[in-house]
């Protein structure tokens, strides 16, 4: 039902030239849901909505806005809409050039890089999510979903509960063993809509901040450094973890820091269009 509505709406947007392109989801030949960029009305019948629409499509916005003159339509889940708020607060995108097609979301299923899941567990980030509708949109698609009865954000799984109570030494051992699997492919960074520095600090050619080798020491600098750069900005879409070929528990790492931000600074990223309170603005007489 939602699929049909997306197809019809996208078709009308393109026909009326409201947007140059609609970024949405399609199902590929191997039954995997993946992003699609539709700029022809004829292709709108490829658009879908299902519980495998995991990707945070906002990762494509900056490049697409650069490459086009007009406006971009984008299918947005509640979590993705938080990204748009952060990108807006940081002046990285022009909200007026977006046409946000909001989707009412029941949650996304686990395990869909290789193939669509028919049923099963909801993703960890969905279990911790308190939204059913995007926070900002130009058009809403969805039936009415019964308000989810969600467990408490912070300790809804065994690992989180363990981390809350573990000693610093135990936590360090856990995280270092996670980072040990890292092969420095930087897929986590590439999948993240908020990681967008022209040259990543951790991949500079002069290796001035951290080495490029996949050693415990260098991996630790990269992952911890990146987590801190995202603290107060990461909205918890979990795409970093889904993309990681080594299944490193990046989602949990970011959630830990998000909890800290909420407790210490009373800030939750992306619920409004405002900068994280720990942002420092350089220049202008400083």
């Amino acid at each position: 039902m939602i699929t049909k509505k997306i197809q019809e709406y996208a078709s009308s947007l393109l026909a009326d030239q409201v947007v140059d392109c609609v970024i949405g989801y399609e199902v590929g030949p191997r039954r995997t849901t993946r992003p699609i960029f539709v700029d022809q009305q004829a292709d709108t019948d490829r658009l879908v909505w299902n519980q495998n629409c995991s990707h945070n499509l906002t990762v494509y916005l900056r490049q697409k806005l650069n490459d086009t003159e007009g406006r971009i339509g984008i299918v947005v889940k509640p979590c993705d809409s938080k990204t748009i708020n952060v990108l807006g607060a940081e002046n990285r995108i022009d909200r007026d050039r977006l046409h946000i097609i909001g989707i009412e979301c029941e949650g996304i299923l686990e395990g869909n890089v290789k193939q669509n899941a028919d049923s099963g567990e909801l993703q960890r980030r969905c279990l911790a999510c308190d939204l059913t509708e995007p926070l900002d949109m130009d058009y809403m698609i969805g039936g009415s979903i019964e308000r989810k009865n969600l467990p408490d954000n912070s300790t809804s799984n065994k690992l989180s509960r363990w981390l809350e109570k573990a000693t610093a030494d135990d936590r360090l051992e856990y995280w270092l063993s996670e980072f040990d699997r890292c092969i420095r492919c930087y897929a986590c960074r590439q999948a993240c809509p908020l990681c967008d520095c022209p040259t990543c600090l951790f991949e500079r050619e002069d290796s001035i901040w951290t080495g490029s080798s996949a050693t415990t020491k260098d991996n630790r600098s990269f992952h911890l450094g990146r987590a801190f750069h995202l603290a107060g900005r990461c909205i918890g879409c979990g795409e970093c973890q889904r993309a990681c070929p080594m299944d490193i528990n990046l989602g949990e790492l970011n959630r830990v820091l998000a909890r800290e931000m909420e407790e210490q600074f009373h800030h939750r990223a992306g619920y409004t269009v405002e900068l994280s309170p720990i942002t420092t603005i350089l220049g202008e007489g400083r």
Partner: protein
Amino acid sequence: MDFISKKSLESWLASVAETKKLYAPVYTDGVLLYQQPNEIEDIVWDFSRPVQSAKEIIFPQSEKMLTIEKNGQNIQIIENLNNDISVIFGVRSCDARGCLVLDKLLVEAEPVDHYYKTRRENTALVGLACEEMGDTCFCTSVGGGPDNSEGLDVMLHRHQDGYLVEIVSSAGEELFNGIEFDRQDIAFNERRFEPEFVLPSQDLLKSSFDSEIWRSESERCLSCRICAYVCPTCRCFDVRDEPGASNNGTEIVERIRGWDSCSGEAYRRIAGGHNPREAKADRLRNRIYCKLHYTQEQSGMMACTGCGRCIDSCPVNIDITEIIGLILEGEPG
């Protein structure tokens, strides 16, 4: 062929691990990788393929090539070669084929890559033949096969409660020297596996250079490089100088090489900012062409072994077999 029971094989593996570095498919926090097992019982025998290929061991993610010692303007340069003697157990045919491609590029093409050559010469490959092909496997379409023993030193074929032993090379013979086989001269029934599809000809590939396929298929690409890192044949690397620990007034610099990929944004960017492959379409096209066409032209061997890892790992489902299908159709996706 001779037959060896799984139990006897496990004892043999334990004895190998005593004198050499043994790598085998092992679950590390739920991820299957070729690693050194803590216990022989940790070795996984029923699997499709580890997430990373055997390349990880003979051409690691990073290695130190040189140590440079600076004492004022006095410079000493020390070559750093790895001398481990290793055995990789459980190698799939696609990974072995990958090693053959790397051999062509790094050893047979002059000048010799000393770092790769040393590791390769000191590493024996013991294969486990696949009994069936996975969803994303297509080794039969690129000149390989699930039980193809090319590139291996020994190939093991599953048989009842153990394995038939196919000795392929003299290094393999040496490995199994003195072993008591449980049974001998068992007949080996070769199985036929059909190719999944026919590859586009080199001419058709060349003529697809300006196709719309590259733009449409690359639009969702995140330039994340996973495809190259899990690939058994991708070997592009960058070289950096990084500081080592100083030593009594002597500055130590380590010249390190590490994996890089043409799918990465900055791959061809030069100082000053010019980047001939700024567009994702150009990068995707280069990578696919390198796999299916350029390496073939350069070395006589195709760089794709049909292992399917890139298909399984791509977060946005960019699929080389799908692209091949589009090229064969001759029209954009």
